[in-house]
Structure formats: C-alpha cells, structure tokens
C-alpha cells in the first residue's frame, strides 16, 4: 500500500455481459485493484482477459455487475460527469471534418470554455505534441502516429488527474511506438496524472509502468501484480538489465502454469 492519495479503487468487481439470446460472458471475476494518484498502471493479458472491460468500467462506459469502483472517492458516473479523467483509444477517433485544433478543443467546447481560453489551451497542447504546424490540417492529412498524438493531446485537454488509455499505440509501427512511449513518459512526469494503460505488449508495459497488472481470461481476473522500480525511463532503460528482468517477470507471470492462457500476447 502506498501512502499517496488514491485515484482509483476497484473492489471485488464482477462484470457479466448478457447477449440478447441470453448467453452470458463472464468478462471479469472478483477483480480488486488500487491505483495511487500519479501512478502508472498497465493492464496486460491475452485477448478476452477483460483488460479493456476493466478500463471501460472505470470510465463508466459500461456498468459493473457487482462490486464497487471509486474514482477519486466518487462513483465512476459522478467522476465521468465531473470530467475527472481523460481517455484515449486504439483508434484515434478524431472527427474527420474538424481540423487538428478543433479536434483537440472538442472537449473544451462541450464543457463551455470561452473561445479565447480554448485557443490558448490548444496552442499549449499543439506545442506539447509537436504539431503546432499542423493545427489547421484535417485528420486525413496526418500519419497514424500524428493522429494518435492529437488524440492524446485531446485526452489531456482538461488537465485530468487520471488518464485511461486503451491500447493507444496498438495500431502503430514499432519505431513510432517507442517514440510515442518516450513522449508519454515525459507527459506523465509533466502532468503528474495517474494512468491506467491497457496493452498486450510486454516491453511496452514494463517500460511505462510503476506496476504491471497481469490478467488471464475465462473468466477475466488478475493473476499477478508486478512492481517495477526504475530510477529513470529513457532510451537507456530499454537496453538495461533491470528492464529485461522486468520483461522476464511479466512473461513468466503471463505464462504462469497455463501456457495456453498466454496466447495472443505479443513478445515484442
């Protein structure tokens, strides 16, 4: 347990999806987790382990079946309505008819910011993601990595204390991906936000996280939580022995006894 204030608590949560025909999918079973303020947590596991579902429950995009989730001491619904978190998905999800700037300003516009304040904030964010020259471009004119940077800027627009990210780099090539990871580390140090990061890449989880939460499917549950304590996260860490130890620890946890369960996890 950490002495820091708590960002998210998940207590004995179950999630069961019912299809219209009555078939049930037990997506999450008795999941408990605590995320401290400013902490970077990765959820990793094979497809169907419920890692995205867990993130969606915290975001109040789906409702829990039983158990309890709090976000900064509130219900997820209250936290969503109070805009306590920023969110990014695997698809950038930019609106194609809006410029890069207007996309970043979308949440600000919805929440009634004055045009002048919106412009000031989007200027800062465009600078932050290095796309100031592309402010007036349409999303279709950007590369995949640039679109994802815009989506991340949008998630940071209201300076949330919690970032929820569902495989935001999943569709990017390896080089862009490492570059984006470095940027994300810098962003998190700057903003001090807590992050729940869903991924199925072991090195990505190890590189970014304070703790890696390993999950397994049918029903989705947490099998192991691995603490990582790196003094710094930069390019050198990727070559460091401690990094490889972390990768090995996560890989062993994923394979833990039932090798079949680890299928679908990328070892890159």
């Amino acid at each position, binding site marked *: 347990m950490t002495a820091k204030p708590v960002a998210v608590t998940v207590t004995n949560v179950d999630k069961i999806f019912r299809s219209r025909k009555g078939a049930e999918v037990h997506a999450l079973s008795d999941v408990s987790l605590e995320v401290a303020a400013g902490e970077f947590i990765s959820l990793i596991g094979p497809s169907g382990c419920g890692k995205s579902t867990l993130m969606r429950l915290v975001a109040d995009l789906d409702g829990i079946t039983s158990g309890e989730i709090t976000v900064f001491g509130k219900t997820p619904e209250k936290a969503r309505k109070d805009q306590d978190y920023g969110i990014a998905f695997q698809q950038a999800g930019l609106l194609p008819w809006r410029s890069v700037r207007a996309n970043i300003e*979308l949440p600000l516009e919805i929440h009634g910011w004055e045009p002048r304040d919106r412009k000031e904030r989007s200027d800062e964010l465009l600078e932050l993601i290095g796309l100031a020259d592309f402010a007036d471009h349409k999303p279709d004119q950007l590369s995949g990595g640039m679109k994802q940077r815009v989506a991340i800027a949008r998630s940071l627009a209201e300076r949330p204390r919690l970032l929820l990210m569902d495989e935001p780099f999943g569709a990017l090539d390896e080089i862009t991906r490492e570059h984006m990871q470095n940027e994300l580390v810098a962003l998190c140090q700057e903003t001090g936000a807590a992050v729940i990061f869903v991924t199925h890449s072991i090195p990505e989880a190890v590189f970014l996280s304070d703790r890696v939460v390993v999950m397994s499917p049918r029903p989705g549950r947490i099998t192991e939580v691995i603490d990582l304590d790196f003094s710094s996260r930069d390019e050198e860490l990727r070559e460091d022995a401690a990094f490889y130890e972390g990768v090995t620890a996560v890989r062993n946890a994923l394979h833990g006894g039932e090798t079949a369960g680890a299928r679908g996890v990328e070892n890159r």
Partner: protein
Amino acid sequence: MNAGSTARTLLAPVVLGAAAIALWQLLVVAFQVEPFLVPSPSGIAGAFADTASGIMEASLATGLNALIGLLIGAVLGIFVAIIANALTFLDRMLVPLVAALAVIPIVALAPIFYAMFGAAAETGRQLVAAVAVFVPMYLNTLHGLRQVEPVHRDLMRSYAATKEQTNRMLLIPGAIPYVLTGLKIGSSLAVISALIAEYFGGPAKGLGRAITSSAAASNYTVAWAYVLGAVLLGTVFYGVTAALESFSHRHRSGT
C-alpha cells in the same frame, strides 16, 4: 484525375451522343418519318430556337415549383429524421408510414391537392414535389445519422455530452454526405414531380402544360422542344446538387 483522363471521360459520352443524334437525323430524313411519329433533331433544334423565350418562361415556372418543393421536402425530411433518430419509438411509428409514402405514385396526389388549394395556385404542384423529395431525404438522413463509429460514441459519453451536443457536434456533421446524396436523388424527383403534376389540369404555365398543349395542337416538334427544355432543367438541378455533393466530399477528405 488529370486533365487528359477528364477530357476522355467527357469526350466518350459526347461522341456517343453526337453519333446517336446524327443517326437519328439520318433515319428521319432517309425514311421521311412524319413529325407526329418522331421529328428530326434539326427540326427540334429549330423549334427550340424559335420558342426559346417560351421554353425559358415555362422552365422558370416549373423550376421554381420544383425548387420550392425541393427545399420544403429537404428541410422536412432532415428535421423529421433528426427527431426520429432521437426518439426511437417515433422511428418505429414512421417506418410503415414512410414505406407507404414511398410506394404511392406521388403525382397521383396532384388532383387531391388541387381540390384542397385550387388548381390555379402553385401550392399543389409544390407540395407534390415536396412529398416526392421528403422520402429519399428522410431515409438518407436517418441512415447518415446512424453511421456513428463506436469510438466516437464512447468519446461523447466520456465527455458527458448532452443529446443536443452529440447531435450538433457528431451526428449531424457525420450525416452531411448522406444528406447531400439524398438531395441529389431528390432534385431529379422534384423536377419530374412538379412537371408531371401540371398534366393534371389547372391553368399552369410550366413545361408539363406546354408539352400537353403543344401535342394537343399537333405541334409535335414544339412539344419535343419543350421536352428538351425539361431535360435541360432536370440536368441543371441534378448538376448543381451533384456538384455540391462532390465539393463536400473533397472538402471533407481534406485534399
């Protein structure tokens, strides 16, 4: 598309059209076909030139009815679609009604509208066009409003956006290409409906009336000249809306 291929795509139909007209002229002259059967293209062109001002006047009359009908039908179709999309129960109530509306030969409503508003007033003819336009506008807009990506829906939910905001910032802009396609389909329907509605009587001064009265007076070549006017009017309506559609498409894809 480069200039060469644009020229080619334009040239091919023009050449085909010219060849067809030349063949038509040749056949009419060679077999001495009577004008009440088929007049020659040169005869139609001559009649068109002679009655140009009359055709223009009639085109404006029919065109204005079509335009007013198009606007009423489009606004109504878009508006009802937005409401139906927001209120699911209303959509379910409207499905059979719109289906019924789609299979009614809408110009058949003309005599009924004439009885309601008087055959001398243009209202009936404008309403016929409006009803004809409403159906494709409603269906296309509704379809467009439902083409929402799940990631965008999640995003708007995460922002706790109101229904009004979701409509204004996500659904309606997303539906615009579909609305414009509906408008393109509706534009031809508007012209056809406004014109045919004139066949059902009343002292109309449009193209439909001119075609029937010319034919009744055995001025077949003149009747054909008015038909040519109707083709041109329809082409203008279609061309403008098609250009609007492709402009929005290009604008949107950001090239």
